């Protein structure tokens, strides 16, 4: 049972509160992603689990055992670093063997396991090279191989894909997912890329200013963001968020008229995903001038503006119209409207 529990942990640097008191349980075999913008405390949280950072208060339990005072080496974890953290003076083989060497595994056995692991991540041909002779993707694989070679009970991954180019990132993402499926090891993964979070995670913890604002499955977070911050952070292109008021059962903003079942209220933000809007002939919920058309290949992003309001929809790839002409958007069937309080960001519906 490789379960990780953070109990009332807190981290301060001098007077600066990096991670306020909170708790989090990562279940056995789970792939948990810590997601948030840079500086939100996600890496700090992971480094506290690793033991690279002391915790100011609280307890960290791994497999039911309190590890606060244990050095990283005694926590039975493996970690993949953003810059890979390879040993520049060792060959690929030595890099992969090093964790085994530290644990006193016999030489022959070490060799065998390193080769097996290298084969798993397709590094067998590069075993005698140095990290400086490898491409970014290959270095990434070495880091991965070094992490899995000794089958730890927990994997920690700190933005492992952020230094790769876009195409490689997608390939490696799939490999990571497959690897997790195959090994079933509890994994904590830090990223600022919501796409990675959505595709990889069993559960996502969205963090902001050191605090976990929502912890749920990717599906749930996408469908029901807990607040304005999560709503804007998840999804690409991001959710349309429109300032307005509700009166007489209708949400109103410039160019917007949407019936909403809710008592009158000022300072409301209406949210709707671009995927859930379509182009309509006229007299629809959203009316304005066409502002921009962006073809993405499989679809066209249609942006219309009316005064301060700006609404984006994912339309058909072959949709064409002239800029600055009138344009109308309507919610698709079953589209979901989200309502948030402007001031607190809290979800209303």
């Amino acid at each position, binding site marked *: 049972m490789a379960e990780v529990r953070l109990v009332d942990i807190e981290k301060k640097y001098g007077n600066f509160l990096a991670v306020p008191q909170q708790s989090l349980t990562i279940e056995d075999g789970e792939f948990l992603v810590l997601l948030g913008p840079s500086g939100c405390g996600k890496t700090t949280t992971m480094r506290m689990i*690793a*033991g*690279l950072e002391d915790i100011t208060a609280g307890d960290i339990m791994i497999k039911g055992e309190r590890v606060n005072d244990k*050095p*990283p*080496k005694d*926590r039975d*974890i*493996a*970690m993949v*670093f*953003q*810059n*890979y*953290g*390879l*040993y*520049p*003076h060792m060959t690929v083989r030595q890099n992969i063997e*090093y*964790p085994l060497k*530290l*644990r006193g595994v016999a030489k022959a056995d070490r060799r065998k396991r390193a080769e097996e692991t290298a084969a798993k991540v397709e590094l067998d041909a590069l075993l005698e090279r140095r990290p400086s002779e490898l491409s970014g993707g290959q270095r990434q694989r070495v*880091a991965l191989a*070094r992490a899995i070679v000794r089958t730890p009970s927990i994997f*920690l991954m700190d933005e492992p894909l952020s230094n790769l180019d876009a195409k490689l990132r997608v390939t490696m993402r799939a490999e990571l997912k497959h690897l997790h499926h195959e090994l079933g090891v509890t994994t904590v993964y830090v990223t600022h890329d919501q796409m990675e979070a959505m595709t990889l995670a069993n559960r996502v913890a969205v963090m902001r200013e050191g605090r976990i604002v929502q912890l749920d499955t990717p599906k749930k977070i996408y469908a029901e963001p807990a607040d304005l911050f999560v709503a804007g952070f998840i999804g690409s292109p991001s959710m349309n968020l429109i300032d307005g008021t509700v009166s007489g059962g209708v949400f109103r903003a410039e160019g917007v008229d949407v019936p909403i079942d809710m008592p009158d209220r000022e300072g409301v933000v209406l949210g709707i995903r671009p995927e859930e809007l379509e182009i309509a002939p006229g007299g629809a919920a959203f009316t304005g001038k066409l502002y921009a058309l962006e073809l993405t290949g499989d679809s066209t992003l249609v942006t219309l503006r009316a005064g301060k309001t700006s609404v984006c929809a994912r339309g058909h790839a072959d949709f064409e119209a002239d800029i600055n002409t009138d344009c109308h958007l309507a919610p698709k069937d079953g589209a979901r409207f989200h309502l948030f309080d402007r001031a607190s960001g809290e979800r209303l519906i």
Partner: protein
Amino acid sequence: MRKTLSYLGERALLVLVSVIVLFPIVWMFLTAFKQSRDAYSVSLNFKPTLQNFVTVFSDPWNLGSMVLNSVIVATVTVAIAVPCATLAAYSFSRFRVKARKFLFFLILSTQFIPAVVIVLPFFLMFRQLDMLDTRLALIIVNLAIVTPFVIWMIKGFIDAIPTDSEEAAMIDGASRLRVIKDIVLPVAAPGIMTSSIFCFILTWNEFLFALILSRRDAVTLPVGLVSFRTEQGDLWELMSAAGVMITVPIFIMALFIQKHFTRGMTAGAVK
């Protein structure tokens, strides 16, 4: 046209600079191979001889024992200062120890204490302990100058190494000391090597301590130079030969670490 002119001008200036820098060195080398009557003329028309080197290594000059003194003093100083400094530099670079700023400040400032201040009490102490004119005495005082300098320099090199690999090693199961042995030392080796050579050069060229603390047995090369000033006047050709002996090993070392040299020189100072 203007561009090529300015380019030519730049090259001409560089040639001039090289000449100014090289001339005194070249002249010393030439003189070292002149017979004594040629040494006192500026003519380049002379028959080269190795006689001066034979002379300085024989009685009464015995440059050989000075070479030995210089080698021993410089080597032992490096062998003590560099390991201690490496550990301290690592600690300064990686840990937020209490009073770290104060301690580092202390180290930095001792580097600027004038050597005369240090040598005075040591002279008295060594006199008391009957240690004047020993290599050990020279090694001890040289440590005073060299250690803070090396700490600072190696810290510059270690600061430049990303901590990722070290953290990876700790997670892979290494203790701090193991991390230092397996990761930090190999990766910082070029920097440590450069610092060692710097430290060697400093000690090798050190003059004030050796002048005061040695008389006969422990005299090092730079002080040995002064002994060529005799009642019959300065023996330039012998001095030059001795100068070549001082300079050649250092030049070889300096050129050997040429690439790191500039970085090393400035690592302590600007960083």
